[in-house]
């Protein structure tokens, strides 16, 4: 049996990678894909914990997380499209008029 901690550490590693993606990539779509990575890391924790705790609530949670992920993706991508249509770019460098 793989200890639960292994799953959690894997999740943490994925979470960190996702975070790095958010921090480093300038392309908004890439940033959003990194967010998906984060959500996957979370799902991994929920699923593994659910199994180890012999409790299905975690898996139900994953269901909702996936739903939310879909919704967020929809909204986010809509925003990206709107932005691109109007200004022709989806570079985060473009989004720096608000500052201070």
């Amino acid at each position: 049996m793989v200890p639960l901690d292994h799953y959690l550490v894997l999740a943490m590693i994925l979470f960190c990678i996702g975070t790095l993606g958010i921090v480093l990539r300038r392309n908004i779509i890439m940033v959003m894909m990194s967010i998906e990575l984060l959500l996957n890391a979370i799902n991994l924790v929920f699923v593994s914990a659910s199994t180890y705790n012999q409790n299905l609530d975690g898996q139900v949670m994953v269901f909702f997380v996936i739903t939310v992920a879909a919704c967020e993706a929809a909204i986010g991508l809509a925003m990206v499209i709107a932005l691109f249509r109007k200004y022709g770019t989806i570079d985060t460098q473009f989004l720096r008029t608000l500052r201070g």
Partner: protein
Amino acid sequence: MGQITIFYILAFLATACSLLVISSKNPVTSAIYLVCDLFILAGIYASLQAEFVAAIQIIVYTGAVVVLFVFVIMLLNLAPNEQSSLGLKLPDIGFTLLTVLSFLIVTVLLVNEQSSVSGGALGPPEAIAQLGGNTRAVGMTLFTKFVWPFELASFLILAAIIGAVHIAKKDPKPADKAYGNLKASNREKAIYGSP
């Protein structure tokens, strides 16, 4: 034994794919790696006897969400220079890597051999099997204990749809576009006096 080996292989693959996701120059490539990643994770879920989740991971996540990404990437057809550049300057990157690394170290430091307690209300896998398997058990939970959030999820999706439609729809009144400029010029007029 075998389980552990499989886990490590999958874990390695997942990490590798994730790294490729964030490091690929082309978003499409990234998306492909993301799909791979999701599949691998689905494998892990399956190995954890969470078949239902593994299934929706593939169907919904991979089938819908990532495809949506790919679709949008295609739609936008980005110029190459916008695909690859990094969001931070070099010193910042070093700093960030350091931060994230230390974050990881801290996390790993935190790990100890404490075993988690089981607050399980469901019982061992046999109980799940008795209920008719994982999918049915999850379904039952979803529709009894979590019926309220489940219903709410519909509103969530509805809200997302409305939002997405509102965002993506073309501006019905193009005149409005100039509104901001108008306001700006209004102020300038006030400052410099009208000609």
